[in-house]
């Protein structure tokens, strides 16, 4: 059936171009980040770690990294706890209007992020949260709850309810059932929500740009202000680190998922 018609040829060419289009820019960033040149040049004249060294010794970048981590960790914990709790309420309780509530909790994903950014900036200035780490944590938590929520709701829908019923019939109390039966089964989804929240918090730029100040300035905002000035290979090094960070999260997430399949094997 698969003949080499002109159409199939065209399709093959387009696909090859798309692969190049998606991959090449990132590959070039990776290569440039190890360049020995003093400015952007390609191919690089030699290998060096100078740009990584610059990132990890420059006080401005270190301060930014510190802020990013200070925001990312509480955000991930807070949104995983709140998101998982809400997912339990939505799929395991007699709460009326679950579709409506879920719609509201998912709204930060649907509303254009520029609107969220402007809105949060406006009220945070009034509330005194503008340019503070707790302010950034709250804003990032709201942005990441939808990811945790949807991942965990999906996982809860896949849990075999007969397991919970069986535990109940054997006399287990609700919290015990949750701790011993439900939680272990949805753990991969909870972990993947946590990783999502970490990556999104670290990468977020638009809302962060509005509510951060020169003294409280995470990595992405520092990158943003540097990029607008000139194209500095330090940014390529940071971009590579960010990329590796996402890749690591992706691998961990895949690992968690694979693990979740094991109980189903017996």
């Amino acid at each position, binding site marked *: 059936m698969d003949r080499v018609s002109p159409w199939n040829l065209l399709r093959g060419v387009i696909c090859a171009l798309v692969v190049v289009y998606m991959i090449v820019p990132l590959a070039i960033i990776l290569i440039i980040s190890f360049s020995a040149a003093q400015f952007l040049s390609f191919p690089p004249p030699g290998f060096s770690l100078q740009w990584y060294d610059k990132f990890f010794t420059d006080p401005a970048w270190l301060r930014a990294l510190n802020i990013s981590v200070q925001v990312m960790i509480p955000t991930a914990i807070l949104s995983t706890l709140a998101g998982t709790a809400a997912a339990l309420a939505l799929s*395991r309780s007699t709460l009326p209007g679950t579709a409506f509530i879920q719609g509201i909790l998912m709204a930060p994903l649907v509303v*254009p992020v520029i609107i969220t950014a402007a809105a949060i900036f406006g009220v945070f200035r009034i509330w005194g949260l503008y340019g503070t780490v707790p302010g950034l944590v709250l804003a990032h938590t709201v942005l990441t709850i939808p990811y945790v929520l949807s991942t965990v709701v999906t996982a809860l829908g896949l849990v075999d309810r007969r397991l919970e*019923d069986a535990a109940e019939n054997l006399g287990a109390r609700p919290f015990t059932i949750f701790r011993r039966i439900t939680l272990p089964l949805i753990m991969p989804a909870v972990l993947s929500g946590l990783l999502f929240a970490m990556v999104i918090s670290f990468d977020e730029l638009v809302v962060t740009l509005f509510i951060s100040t020169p003294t409280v300035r995470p990595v992405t905002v520092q990158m943003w202000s540097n990029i607008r000035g000139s*194209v500095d290979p330090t940014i390529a090094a940071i971009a590579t680190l960010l990329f590796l960070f996402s890749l690591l999260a992706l691998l961990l997430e895949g690992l968690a998922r694979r693990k979740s399949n094991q109980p189903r094997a017996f």
Partner: protein
Amino acid sequence: MFAKLARDRFAWLVLPAGILILAVFAYPVFWLLVRSFSDPSWGLQNYETVFAKVIYLKVLWNTVAIAGATTIGALLLGFPMAYSMVHAPPLMRKLLVFVVLIPFWTSILVRTFAWMVLLQPNGLLNDMLIGIGFIETPAKFMFNRTGVLIGMIQIMLPFMVFPLFSVMTRIDHAYVQAAANLGATPVKGFLRVYLPLCLPGIVTGSMLVFIISLGYFITPALLGGRKDVMIAQLIQQQISDFGNWGLSSALAVVLLIGTGLIFAVVHKVFKVGPDARF
């Protein structure tokens, strides 16, 4: 029994997330939307400004034009890509999925920076093209519409490919076969049978790409020029540079209503939802 008791206990668990979203998202958005009618004084003057001044109308037009062109570009590249993913052998399919997903997992800032390195006047693409003698003076690939589209289409491609992919995997190839057996040429079979079957994927993907593009900020701000300002940049400028909350809020309302309208119309006409979870 567990059921009833636990169910009512679990209901309270919605509160932390609920309170957070209401306080840090819903209230601020409401506060912003009210500004469009109340700042600096009550009335519709902010909306009059948006729709009366040529510069603002131009921005609205840019927004629609860039989002539209991004959608078309993403569809033209995404359709063959999704088709190949469906019909490729397993290993090839994995590779293609990986290619589409990897950039999806890297931050938009990183990807946009990569394009800046490539496309700037003394960037790699110009170096290469001059090196092989294709052009003599550096061509302008960024700070214009070309740059914005190159960056945006790459970022939006996954949102187009995955809805298409999920629809195409469900299409029974017997229909296309039947069309061929009944004498349809491959092109006719494709246009009359396969393409209509793909329509739900095309509509969902296009809607996602268009709606997300409408509110885009980072890529047009970095890769675009003065003539490519989109609504999100205007909102940011008006707030950060001029503190003009009334006008920005009116623009935000226009963006929100525009987005909602497209969503509602597409949903009504095509009976498809935003199948964003692939």
